[in-house]
Every structure is written in C-alpha cells, then in structure tokens.
C-alpha cells in the first residue's frame, strides 16, 4: 500500500468546521446556469492505493456530500441522510496512461469482521475539486476497521491504442481505519458570501499521487485543431486527425474528434450523446452520431471518421443528451441545457 495522505484544495483560505450541518449550508441565491463558485469545498483523505491488472486504484473519502442526479428535464437533489458517514470515492485509472475511465463502474463492498456493512455501485460524478470521479455517501458503523473491496469489470466505451489491451476485471482490497476525528481533520474551506454563486470554479485538488481527469489543452490535442465553441458553459474543441485507422477508419479517411471540457478546470465531460452534421456550401455532407471513445492521446472524447473536411465547412454539434454524471455543488446548473454548437472549420 502506498502511503496515505490528505489533500487540501488549492484556492482560498482554510477554515475548519466540525459540524455535520456545515456540509450542507444554504445554496447560493440566484445560481447562474453556468459553473459557479460553491458555498464551500473540502479536502479528502486517501487510506491507500493498490495496483492490479494494469489498473491502479486509490481509495479516497471526504465528508458526506449533497449532490444532484441528472434527469432528461432537470436534476434531482440528493440530500445527506442522517446515516451517511462519509463520501467514498474509489479512483481507478489505467496505469500506463493515467486515464480515469468513466465507463468502468466500480462496485464497492464494505465489510467489518466479515460482516456486510454496505455495498453499492458509486455514481459517476463531476466535482470541481475532484474532477470526474465515482462516489457516493456510505453508511459506516462508527470508528473502526473496515475492509473495502473495489471491483471493476471490462470496459463498455470504445478504446483505442494501448487502452485496448486493458479489458479485464480487477479487484482491490483496502483495510480502512475510520475515525470521526480523522474525518474531521479533512479541510473544509468556506467561500465568502460575495463570491459563492458567482461564475467561476474552485481549482482541482493538488493530488500528487493521483492522476487528474483533465483533457488536453487545445494546443496539446493531437491533430489539427479546427475551432471550438461553447454550450451550457462547456467548451467543445474540434480537432481533425489525418489518420483514422485506429478509430476504425479506412484508408484516406480522417477522424473528426470533439473534446468537450469544463471551463476553468478542463475536466472531461463524459456520458453525453453527441451527434454532428457537416455542411459544405449549403449541402449536408455528413450527419452521424459522435461515438464516445477513450484514446491515449485524445483521452475521453467523441468522434467519427469522415471522408474529408474542407476549410469553411460548417460543423454543427448537437447535444442529444448532456453529461449524465451526477453533479456536485457548482456544476449542477451547468452542462444541462445545451444548445447546438456551431463551428466553422
């Protein structure tokens, strides 16, 4: 097991609160339909890290959180329940690339002295300081030693390059010493009243031993970056790769990749349904879905093979479904109502 450690967010001052109610202060008034500064943010604790079958897994936790689940016409709020002890987050990544695959849904089994305590599949989630992760509030039985098993199965999103080799199951077992006093040492940072609810985001946590869930800056994306646009406060960067062979394309075909990301933190936005049309001189030359794909270089993105793209072609990206990840505070009003994105290539 690698050493444990606690992590503190990068921005702002640190105030420590030790009451449960502090985890759910009143939401800011007049939240924008965009990414906004939440009321507060928290650090996290990492009881351990394991490696198996080409994957690494870190078990991390923080205070129990309120969050929101997505619905087609809105969101539904999940309140912290009195029984909830912690917010448990198993972070699994591909050892070679450091990519956190959103399609591999971990299963958690918590036991104590061989007796079942809780079992669940945590939700895929977006949070400002944690980025994309799987997490849910867990119900423990107070201070003590718990065994937490994190098991993952095969992928269900298309993968390319070296990522295609990682198809198998893996299971990671952690001995987890839990105490309220350690939990209460996790940082809790209040955001001033005049800042909370305004557009902006808390920075990603500085997690030295863990990879992040960011996608590349436009400059660092492979291919020829042909433009970008925004929708629902998400930024969509469009790049064109000359060689589509690793994406199933034929000879001479190109690969059109759309890389959506959160503003400020550049966190990936998985689990969307995207489609695209390409217009050339007023005529449609292409109308297809964009398939979610995880590539070692493009990382999580949506793409399709195309015969050709010419300068001046009009690309319309349609968000058929916004990201179906659960949302932590500050992300629940963004990436929901997402109109078409128009990009002139």
């Amino acid at each position, binding site marked *: 097991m690698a050493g444990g450690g606690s992590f503190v967010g990068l921005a702002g001052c640190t105030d420590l609160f030790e009451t449960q109610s502090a985890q759910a202060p009143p939401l800011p008034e007049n939240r924008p339909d965009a990414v906004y500064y939440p009321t507060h943010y928290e650090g996290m604790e990492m009881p351990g890290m394991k490696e198996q079958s080409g994957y690494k897994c870190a078990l991390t936790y923080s205070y129990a959180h309120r969050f929101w*689940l*997505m*619905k*087609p016409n809105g969101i*539904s709020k*999940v309140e912290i*329940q009195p029984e909830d002890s912690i917010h448990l987050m198993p972070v699994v990544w591909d050892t070679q690339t450091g990519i956190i695959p*959103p*399609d*591999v*849904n971990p*299963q958690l089994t918590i036991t104590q002295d061989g007796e*079942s*305590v*809780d*079992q*669940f*599949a945590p*939700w*895929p989630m977006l949070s400002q300081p944690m980025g994309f992760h799987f997490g*849910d509030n867990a*119900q423990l039985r107070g201070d003590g030693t718990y065994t937490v098993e994190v*098991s*993952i*199965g*095969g*992928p*269900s*999103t*298309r993968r390319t390059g070296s990522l295609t080799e990682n198809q198998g*199951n893996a*299971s990671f077992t952690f001995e987890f010493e839990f105490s309220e006093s350690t939990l209460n040492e996790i940082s809790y940072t209040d955001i001033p009243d005049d800042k909370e609810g305004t557009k902006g985001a808390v920075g990603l946590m500085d997690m030295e031993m863990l990879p992040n869930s960011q996608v590349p800056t436009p400059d660092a994306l492979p291919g020829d970056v042909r433009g970008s646009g925004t929708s629902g406060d998400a930024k969509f960067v469009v790049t064109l790769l000359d060689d589509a062979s690793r994406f199933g394309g034929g000879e001479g075909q190109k690969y059109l990749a759309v890389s959506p990301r959160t503003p400020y933190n550049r966190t990936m936005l998985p*689990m*969307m*349904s995207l*489609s695209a049309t390409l217009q050339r001189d007023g005529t449609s030359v292409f109308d297809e*879905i964009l*398939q*979610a794909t995880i590539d070692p270089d493009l990382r999580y993105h949506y793409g399709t093979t195309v015969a050709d793209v010419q300068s001046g072609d009009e690309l319309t990206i349609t968000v*058929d*479904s*916004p*990201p*179906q*990840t659960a949302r932590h505070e500050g992300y629940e009003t963004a990436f929901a109502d997402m109109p078409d994105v128009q990009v002139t290539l």
Partner: protein
Amino acid sequence: MLLYLDYQRDGQPSEDDREEVEAALRGIEHAYERSGDGLLLTVSYSPAYFGRFDESLPEGVDLPDPEALAPFEDPEFDTPDAVVHLASNTAQVVLGAEEALKGNKSTLNGVDQPDATLTDVVTIADRRTGFIGDGLPAEKADEAEGVPADKVPEDAPLFMGFKSGFKKNQASEDRVTIQSGPFAGGTTQHISKLDLNLNQWYNQDDRWQREAKMFCPYHAENDVIEGAGDNLGTSSKIDDCEPTDETAREMGVVGHSQKSARARDDDDSPLILRRDFDSTDDGTASLHFLALQRRITDFVDTREVMNGTDVTEQSAVGQRNNNGILQYIRTERRGNFLVPPRSLRALPPAQPAADAQEVTYESS
C-alpha cells in the same frame, strides 16, 4: 425455497438411490395438492452432476457451465449436483415439506411419509429462502440491512416497489419446454442471486427515476404507472415506449423492461419464464432470480439485452448509470440446471434410454 443438494456417492447414481429420491418426493407430493394453494416443486440438475457420467447430455439439451453474464459482474458459480425448488402460497407448507424431505416428519399434513428421505442420499449444500407477494417486502424490510425504513411501498410485491413478471412479458410453458430427445418435456433453469442496493433506489432516486429505470422514460413522463403497477394489467405496455436506442440517445436513460423486451423470438414471444422472488437471506435484501427457458442460451440472450452494452457504446447511458436497474443489483451467484421431465426427475442419467421416459408432457 431452494435446497441445493450434493449427491453423497461418488460417480454415477445407483438405482437404489433413485428409488429413494423418488419415494421421498412422492411422499411430500401426496401430502398436498399440486397447486399454489398446496405445494409445487421441481428438481433440477447441474452440469457438475451430469459430469458424473461418461456420456454427455443429448444434443439439443443446452446446459453449459454458468459464467459471468456482464462485463462488470464477477459472480460465484453454484456447482452442487441438484436443486429442489419448493413453492407454496403458504410458508408453512414449504417448511413442512423441507422437514419431511429431511426425514424429520412421520406425517405431513396428516399423510404418512415414507421411510425414504432425500437426505439419506444427498447432503444439503445450501438453503435459500424467499417470498413474493403484495405487502411482503414492506413487512420484511426490517429483516435486511440497508432497506430504507418506510420506503418500500406497502402494497408492492417486490423490494424494488413494482410488479414484475407481467403475463405478456413471460414466455409460455410451451415456449420454455424442451421439445425433443429423451429430456423432452423438461426445461432448463438459471438461478442467480442478486443483491439489491435499495438506499440509492429509494433515498437518492425519485419516483420519476424509479419509473423510468424500471419501465421506460415514456412511462415516467406520462404517469402511466400507479403504485406498484397493477393498473397496467397483464402487460407493462412497453410498446408505448420509444425504441431503446432512441431513448438512450435523447433521454440519456433507458428502462429495464424496455431493454429486456427486446429479447424475443420470431413469434414475438419472450424467451424466459421468470419465477423470481425476493429474499432476506443473510440479512441482505436480495433477489433469487429463477428463470426457466428451453435453452440456457435463451437466458444468456435475455441478459445480454438487459446489459444494454450496445446502447452504452452509442449513447449517454452508462455501463450501469441510467441503464435500467443495473446500478442497483450486484450478481452474487449464478447456476445452470436441467429440470428433467417428471419421469426422469430422480437422479437421471445423462443419456436416458429412448424408452425410459413415459411421455407425459407435464409442465415442470
């Protein structure tokens, strides 16, 4: 109740043991009428049991070893020789029959029991119990960890709050019956044990999400379901749902029934006949998913459409997230069994002689 049995003798069964098993089974059958008000039972045998024979099962009997049926599951496999399934509308009947099979009752329901007992020739390897019926899950919510208090609807027949096994979503007994060969009249049985996460289901999802994920988003949008869904009648009205792939793309969520309804044959019949029931075994809210089908492949195909892997690759629907009820169930165990026709139910050979079977075509 499911009694998992290991045959005590090594190798092939003896004629004496066959007679013992048959006599024990007849003993409990004579005590009750063969109906839900009385006692219903089946006996089935695993691939491990048929491995005792030099011959393999006849062609046309599809009984592979159990395997994981989703990329994200890692179940234990059940390999005892046989399973006796006892069912009744009255719990005491099942418990009494169990005791009689173990030789603990000289009379059952006033009927003398034979000297022969099942446990003379088999050892009980596992015992799984459960229930299905309006109000029972709410009544038994206290017996299992993690069932949110007062959240399981009072009238629901299953823990997840909805009726299932709508008549029109079930294969007929004919559809699941083996049609030819020495095991004609029999069927195959798949039994899995699924643990349920009812905390997310009841405390985190709302009613709209439960309806959308159990049935389809259309039903949730249009308030099609009242309570546990008894108002739907004999069908879950899946024809009203949009096609699964369209819903996945445009709504980002698909329903369990909506996906599962895609598993149909050329005559538009479902492939499996569900006989599942809830359980609080080991203090865990779970489901014993027992399904009968002509071939185990029919179950595998049904589970494959339920996984919706095709849908997740092409839409916002996740491997488990928003993917029917996959988020809330964890497969603990799987096992495959052959339910032979009645004439062969006592320790059958792998290759029964053609004339060994009186063709009765009794449904299993």
